[in-house]
């Protein structure tokens, strides 16, 4: 509950219509794209929609004074409950902060407000011949602030890295309302702690990100797409690893297991040979078409070593779109296979990919569940999708146990709990297993020093 007097103060800052307390409207801010069940407890007391950093600063000062929880939110496309206000209070919706502040062509950098959609950052830069590579699956609707807050990855990570590799500096509002700027345009910068990288991926628990300074690279001039079909998942992974070791680095290397492939085949009414156990979709890019052709040839030769069954090199934009439609349609195709689906996100060392998939297969067998596996094979980021029907008696517990074992499997091969979705609420129970008690304590100490009252996105990560 927030007292009317406090609401009045907040409304004086952001305007009457931008601080909403109707339960029905606030309900819309109680969920995200994760499978966290709906609950009246997650409904915020107040939805605040600011338009400037100054407004956020003033709102934070009030929240800090009265100890009101504040949960920052972009477009709530997160997969782990990061933007769910589990302790009520304020949902701070940043989607109206959509200004592009500065495009610095000379330094190849761009400064944008947190609410700009990631695809809009990409498009704005692309028009000027520059490239902002991170492309999480949500990039068409997620905000850059959210992507920085979660340190989102995407399909291009194998060649171009993840969001944090492009964040040069931030403007943030701290829990007490003070505004600070971290990092900057200098490439070499060792002045003080690297707060930029600390805040990137901090899931809204340390500060509210209001502006982001991103570095850009040159846009590759040409691109093409290949589709490879393998008789075994192991061979598919080995092909990708050999490519990387040989210096043929694809811009994306997406791998799908048999369950995933057959799901797409059913969904899109395609015929896919049942002897195919794995499908790899590769994007290659470069400066000239000759260079692309050379890469494609190299890839084909390596794939042949590993008994590839089918190599398709796109010859037209239509074919490129057709191939990518298989990957992009995957999530809904898998979703259509069962009433409920738990999409997970684990990350393992690249060469542990086949071993991890093997472990997941065993878990699926043990719990009698269907688990589709796909992921970014080039960087070891795996998305197992547990398909289930929660209305069946005992199914929920089995799913829960299976997911637990999947996390243990990831840790056992030297991997980690999350590659790109963050910990949020859904992975909290596993954090100690991953970091150890002392490790979690270190996180808590960081949190304590930035947010002593614990108002920023409380009850997350641990």
């Amino acid at each position, binding site marked *: 509950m927030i007292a009317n007097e406090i609401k009045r103060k907040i409304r004086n800052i952001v305007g009457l219509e931008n601080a909403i307390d109707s339960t*029905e409207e606030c*309900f819309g801010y109680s969920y*995200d794209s994760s499978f966290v069940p709906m609950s009246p407890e997650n409904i915020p007391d107040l939805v605040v929609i600011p338009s400037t950093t100054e407004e956020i600063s003033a709102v934070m000062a009030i929240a800090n004074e009265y100890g009101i929880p504040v949960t920052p939110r972009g477009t709530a496309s997160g997969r782990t409950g990061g933007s769910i206000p589990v302790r009520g209070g304020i949902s701070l919706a940043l989607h109206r902060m959509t200004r592009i502040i500065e495009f610095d062509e000379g330094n190849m950098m761009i400064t944008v407000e947190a609410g700009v959609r990631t695809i809009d950052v990409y498009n704005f830069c692309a028009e000027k011949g520059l490239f902002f590579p991170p492309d999480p699956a949500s990039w068409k609707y*997620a905000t850059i602030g959210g992507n920085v807050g979660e340190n989102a990855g995407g399909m291009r990570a194998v060649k171009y890295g993840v969001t944090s590799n492009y964040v040069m500096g931030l403007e943030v509002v701290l829990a007490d309302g003070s505004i600070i700027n971290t990092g900057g345009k200098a490439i070499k910068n060792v002045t003080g702690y690297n707060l930029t990288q600390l805040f990137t991926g901090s899931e809204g628990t340390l500060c509210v990100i209001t502006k982001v300074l991103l570095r850009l690279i040159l846009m590759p001039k040409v691109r093409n797409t290949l589709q490879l079909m393998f008789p075994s998942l192991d061979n598919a992974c080995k092909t990708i690893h050999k490519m990387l070791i040989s210096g043929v680095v694809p811009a994306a290397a997406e791998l799908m297991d048999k369950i995933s492939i057959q799901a797409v085949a059913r969904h899109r009414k395609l015929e896919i040979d049942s002897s195919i156990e794995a499908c790899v979709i590769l994007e290659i890019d470069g400066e000239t078409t000759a260079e692309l052709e050379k890469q494609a040839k190299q890839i084909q030769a390596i794939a042949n070593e590993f008994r590839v069954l089918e190599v398709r090199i796109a010859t037209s934009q239509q074919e490129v779109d057709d191939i990518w439609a298989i990957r992009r349609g995957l999530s809904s195709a898998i979703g259509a296979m069962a009433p409920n689906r738990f999409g997970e996100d684990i990350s393992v060392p690249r060469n542990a990919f086949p071993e991890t998939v093997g472990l997941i297969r065993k878990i699926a067998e043990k719990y009698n569940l269907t688990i589709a596996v796909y992921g970014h094979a080039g960087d070891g980021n795996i998305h197992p999708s547990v398909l289930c029907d929660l209305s069946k008696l005992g199914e929920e517990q089995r799913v829960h146990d299976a997911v637990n074992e999947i996390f243990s499997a990831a840790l056992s091969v030297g991997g980690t709990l999350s590659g790109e979705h963050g910990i949020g609420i859904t992975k909290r129970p596993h954090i100690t297993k991953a970091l150890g008690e002392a490790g979690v304590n270190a996180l808590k100490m960081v949190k304590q020093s930035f947010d002593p009252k614990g108002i920023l996105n409380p009850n997350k990560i641990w």
Partner: protein
Amino acid sequence: MHTDIKSYFKDVEDIVSQCDRCGTCLTVCPLFGAKDMESSSARGKNNIARGLIQGVVRPSTKVLDIINFCLLCRTCVDNCPSKVKTDEAMIALRQYFADKNGSPGATYKALGALMKNRTLVKLSAGTLKILRRIGMNTVIPHGMAPREFTRKQYLASFAGPAALGSTAPLSPITLSDKSKVAYFKGCGMSMMFPDAVEGTIAILGTLTEPERIDNLCCGLPHLAHGLRTDFLEMAKQNIALFEKSDVIVSDCASCSGTLKHIAAYFADDPVWENRAAAFSQKIMGLSEYLVHVGYKAQHRVDAKLTFHEPCHLGRGQDIKSQPRQLLKATGNFIEMAGANTCCGGAGSFHMDYPDIATSILAKKRINIENSGAQIVVSECPTCLVQLNKAAAQSGGKFKVMHISQVI
């Protein structure tokens, strides 16, 4: 589709449980574009439905407001990775509230009663009286097409000398004696655009001798606002009225879209299932029918034309190329930006939420103006009402016509 109240939640749950809550719809929903609260978006609506079913949200007038605040334009469905049918879920929930409250509310009830009554629909004087009584007179007369703007006037204004020598020959298509083509007269068309109705009849007359049947309202206004019983009752009467026709043509996108879906509402009714299915299969939108039979535009004019694609035509029936093809054959067709974006009319939405409808329409007006078109053509009376408002706001930069007045 169930007709029993207890099963509404099941119908709704089957739909909304498919929502992955990703947020794709936020980028395309015209309402979210005009009012950026979560509850405006399809995701917001699907999840308040989910909250209602799970007991996290209690049914209240505020929840009903959120459910009513939807254009049913299907832009979200079209763009959704899981193709969640938000419009159908909202219609079912409106029915749930209407049954729960015993009525959908005075305005919708009055509107429903008006449109159920053939005599009232026919007598525009009577119509206007009722519209005035329920407070809609300020909106509808303003949206009416000016009387002087007829097909004849249009030809006089836009058929320049260049067009005179090239009058298209009559359509070569002759239908066999057996094909009986009937015209389905929509309420919106007859109440607000009688000249366009005459245009449609004239065009159909060049191809066949259209049967004019004294039909009832298609029932969409009833279905959309929780008067499902009325909808089903009128559907049965219409099915019976058109039983002898082979093709039923409507020049209103909402009517043809609704009538095509009637079959689905009788799918588990052993008495009506087959008759409803046969009826739905016979329905064609005007431009769909004209292209199907190879209609040739009867004149060529110099005017720059653009097309506003009604939600119930494009997304509703996948009739996208046909009206454009007809317009290309008759004038200088220009495709405008966002041609398939909802105009904000959406049945009675523009009367219930005039401010939001106006802000959605403003975007449409800018797109029309930027296209440079002299005439914006459409195939739905509600769209025409909205577009006429836009034309007035643009200070006469363009005119609005039904496709039957142009081709």
